[in-house]
């Protein structure tokens, strides 16, 4: 991974808009658990077979602004991250309410190995 641009919660949407203006294709997002409280969200873009990434490091209990209004294709992967990591996205165009893959019987936020944010869970009840 050569070109990684760091970004914050406030600028991630505007940076994505810039990417779209530059003619980048949205590839996908990846979420990685770093420690008990933080996760990394990586946004991958492609233009003429050349990859560029945005890196957003956030707290697990924070809600992340959704980029699905910029790139519609992001809605699936954002729903997936909601399922797997219990992170909330604000302003999703199509929100499955954390039921894209997982039923109630399945474990909650299975991809968080270290800890699941309590705030998100209590917010649901």
């Amino acid at each position, binding site marked *: 991974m050569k070109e990684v641009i760091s970004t914050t919660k406030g600028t991630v949407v505007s940076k994505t808009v810039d990417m779209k203006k530059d003619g980048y294709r949205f590839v996908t997002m990846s979420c990685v658990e770093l420690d008990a409280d933080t996760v990394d969200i990586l946004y991958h873009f492609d233009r003429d077979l050349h990859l560029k990434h945005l890196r957003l490091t956030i707290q697990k209990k924070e809600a992340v602004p959704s980029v699905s209004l910029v790139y519609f294709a992001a809605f699936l992967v954002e729903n997936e991250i909601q399922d797997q990591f219990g992170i909330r996205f604000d302003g999703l165009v199509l929100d499955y309410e954390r039921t894209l*893959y997982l039923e109630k019987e399945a474990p909650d936020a299975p991809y968080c190995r270290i800890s699941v944010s309590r705030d998100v869970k209590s917010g649901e009840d």
Partner: protein
Amino acid sequence: MDILKKLTRKSRIKSPWLLHFDCGSCNGCDIEVLACLTPVYDIERFGIINVGNPKHADLLLVTGTVNHRNKKVLVNLAEQMPEPKIVVALGSCGLSGGVFREAYNVIGGVDKIIPVDVYVPGCPPKPEAIIDGVVTGLEKFSKKKDG
């Protein structure tokens, strides 16, 4: 009436209809099931036809692991099939969960949810093995009572 019953039973074995449901397999078994239906292996020579409606089916071929979402579909399909019926579980995943047994969304083999009559091992089973499994199923089928 007895003659009619005997006739129905006999003809049923000569032409069982098959319903295939993929419940979370990797596709490997599914394409082998489809390969069975196509020219080289051709299970139509046993009178078997692939149908999409569970109410028409005598045989249920299930591939893959069961997860929390598709178990409802699986039960629903099995319940809609008229008696007598035969359930054939295909592939390592259908038998026990296979390589995915430790994954969080996997319950295990098909027999955790519905009773299974024939188990066909392999990852994926060869078409010959699938045909063998189906024919074994038919023997059991002939011994089953009407529902």
